[in-house]
């Protein structure tokens, strides 16, 4: 047994850390927060040049052909630094769906573009926030889509969306070129303005089927376990960063003549963060391992990792704000960035209630 990342993976982490320290400082994140920019275009470009996007895309489609463990390492570091890019939409979600369901020609056409960063893709699965298959109202008739998806993260910047739609076979997936004039994109107000969201209206736009008709819900479901495992690393990374910010502040801030971290109210709260971060990290590692090497354990492992990751990040981020006192609830400070990102990550793919139920089902199957 060896429950650690390999030396090569740790080297990859070091180089990711360096790139992100340069380009995704809190100041850089604040810039995106206060601008109308859909994402940090320069960071995205550098990520593409560093080959990050291609990590888990097979070599035959222009990828680096590495595995999910490498992707997990990047996810953790991106989560720590709140990287404002469409990485997760394009890579964990869209590329994975294309890998799983695309025809040879679709893979050849799209994966290379996504791997190179020549195109950004996203997945439009929610309608009025609902993420269950029964909520899909967008209609597909003769390869033309009509209806509204909302919210769609990275829907403002994406070139391409994978859209769930209802056709004669049930719910199916379709590829849509978002530059098409029959697509309207609107910005949707979100708490985490560093990860902007859109409302996409399809007005009879041309669409290309992805995967078998009627398999849309199953494909999204399978994708969601993979994405949950990777998002868990973003959550753990973010929780770790929020905790470290709290530790730093608690050492430096004095009240009553002593550092506030010497008070048990603060110290023990941060200790509780540590417990949550470390147990969530263990769960994320397990999910990454399952994703890479033990797909039969993925449902249980990813569900557990997501439940733990949501809780750890929400707690660490929220209580980091509290540890900071007054400064914590100001816009110009950094703590709220994590508080909002935690809620952003939670809102994707469904919250803890949904994933506890999934975990329970996997336990029942095992029992």
């Amino acid at each position, binding site marked *: 047994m060896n429950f650690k990342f390999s030396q090569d993976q740790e080297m990859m982490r070091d180089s990711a850390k360096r790139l992100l320290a340069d380009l995704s400082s809190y100041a850089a994140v604040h810039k995106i927060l206060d601008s109308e920019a859909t994402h940090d275009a320069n960071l995205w470009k550098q990520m593409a040049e560093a080959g990050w996007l291609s990590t888990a895309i097979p070599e035959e489609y222009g990828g680096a052909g590495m595995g999910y463990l490498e992707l997990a390492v990047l996810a953790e570091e991106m989560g720590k630094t709140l990287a404002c890019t469409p990485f997760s939409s394009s890579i964990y979600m869209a590329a994975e769906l294309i890998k799983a369901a695309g025809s040879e020609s679709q893979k050849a056409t799209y994966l290379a573009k996504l791997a190179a960063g020549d195109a950004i893709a996203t997945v439009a699965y929610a309608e009025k926030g609902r993420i269950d298959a029964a909520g899909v109202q967008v209609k597909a008739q003769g390869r033309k889509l009509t209806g509204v998806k909302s919210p769609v993260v990275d829907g403002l910047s994406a070139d391409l969306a994978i859209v769930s739609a209802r056709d004669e076979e049930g719910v199916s997936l379709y590829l849509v070129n978002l530059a098409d004039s029959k697509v309207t994109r609107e910005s949707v107000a979100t708490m985490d303005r560093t990860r902007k969201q859109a409302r996409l209206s399809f007005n009879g736009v041309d669409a290309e089927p992805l995967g078998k008709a009627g398999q849309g819900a199953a494909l999204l479901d399978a994708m969601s376990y993979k994405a949950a495992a990777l998002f868990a690393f973003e959550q753990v990374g973010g929780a770790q960063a929020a905790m470290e910010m709290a530790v730093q502040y608690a*050492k430096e801030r004095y009240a009553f003549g002593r550092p506030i971290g010497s008070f048990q109210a603060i110290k023990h709260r941060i200790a509780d963060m540590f417990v949550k971060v470390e147990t969530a990290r263990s769960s994320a590692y397990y999910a990454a391992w399952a994703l890479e090497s033990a797909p039969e354990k993925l449902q249980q492992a990813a569900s557990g990792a997501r439940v733990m990751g949501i809780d750890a990040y929400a707690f660490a981020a929220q209580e980091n704000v509290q540890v900071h006192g007054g400064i914590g609830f100001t816009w110009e400070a950094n703590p709220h960035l994590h508080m909002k990102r935690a809620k952003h990550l939670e809102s994707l793919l469904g919250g803890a209630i949904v994933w506890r139920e999934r975990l329970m089902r996997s336990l029942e199957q095992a029992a």
Partner: protein
Amino acid sequence: MDFNDTPQEAEFRAEVSQWLSQNAKLRSESGGMMSMFAEAEGGELRGEAEWEMVRTSQAWQRKKADANWGVITWPKKFGGRGGNIMQQVIWGQEEAKYETPANIFMIGIGMAGPTIMTHGTNEQKDRYLQPMLRGDEVWCQLFSEPGAGSDLAGLRTRAVKDGDDWVINGQKVWTSGAHYSKWGILVTRHDPSLPKHKGLTYFIVDMESPGVEVRPIRQITGGANFNEVFFNDVRIPDSNRLGAVGQGWAVSITTLMNERMSIGGGGGLFGGDNGLGSIVALLRETTLDGRPALEHDAVRQKMAEFAARFKALELTGYRTLSALSQGAMPGSESSVMKLAMGLLIQEMAAFIMELQGAAGVLTDRQDTLMEAMWQQAYLGIPAIRIAGGTDEVQRNIIGERILGLPTDIRIDKTVPFNEVPTGPSKKG
């Protein structure tokens, strides 16, 4: 034990109700909810729209004052109605049914006024109380500083005597309404070589004085309810000193005790007995994992839990009120309310956001439940858990003042203020 009005209370309520019905407009059904967060949203306002709000608010206060409803509990000699606290609550309950403007007079009427009554000279009472009560002059509170939050007595804003004036230099923070206030209540340090609680002096400062600079602070809600206030050689005449030199801490305590009084009942947030009625109704229409959320036992359990805690806090407010109205002194009970309410709303907000699936993070009014009210609440709660005494301070108050547990070890109380450690890199 009786929850109903006494005959006297019923009579008073009828009187209030009659006046209100003739002078204000009844609220629509949905409007009354969670007004505590309306302000957070409204905070986006700065500029003409906000001044309009201030003027409307002043006009309403003036109207009330003219009809002798200005402040129910102030003594008649200061222009109040001379009523009791239960009447104040009845007023509040009835007023909440009407569309009335934001109350921007809490600092003045609730805190500065009683402090002036207790510690002020006759001249001060004559000068300030009447315009305060009539809404002509708005007040703000200048206590907290960037380096003195929970440790309020750690403040560093200097007051130096110069002839008949004091010259003030320093910075205050978290000041609501500073930009539309005429007066501020200000605590300063006149002697840093004294122990921290001994070297403080309290003033009334004219916010229009030269050298006062107000800058908005943007909160994580996006709004800007608070300000930083900078003092650069601001001169305050000694006649504006409240209490003796060196008595600033004692005077501040009077202000803070009255702040606690005004935190009040907590009821009505969800329209009283109806509990979480309108949320319950909305959740019937909300889908979770393919089913109406309200058919999901886990949702039912959570909502019931929230309802029980919410109702219990409302009832605790009433219990405190019963004691107060029978002559008990305002104690530290409001710490229970503030602490428990903040945590409860945060938990509720997070949960109701979760129920909204992918829209949980949105602040968009269209795709969210109740026009993103819970998302706004979630963003607003950190300020509530921090401002006016953090959760941690409230727990200290409960432990020490109510339960008599021993205080923490204090190394900062007896040494000269300028020798108290203030951080890793600086000294005294």
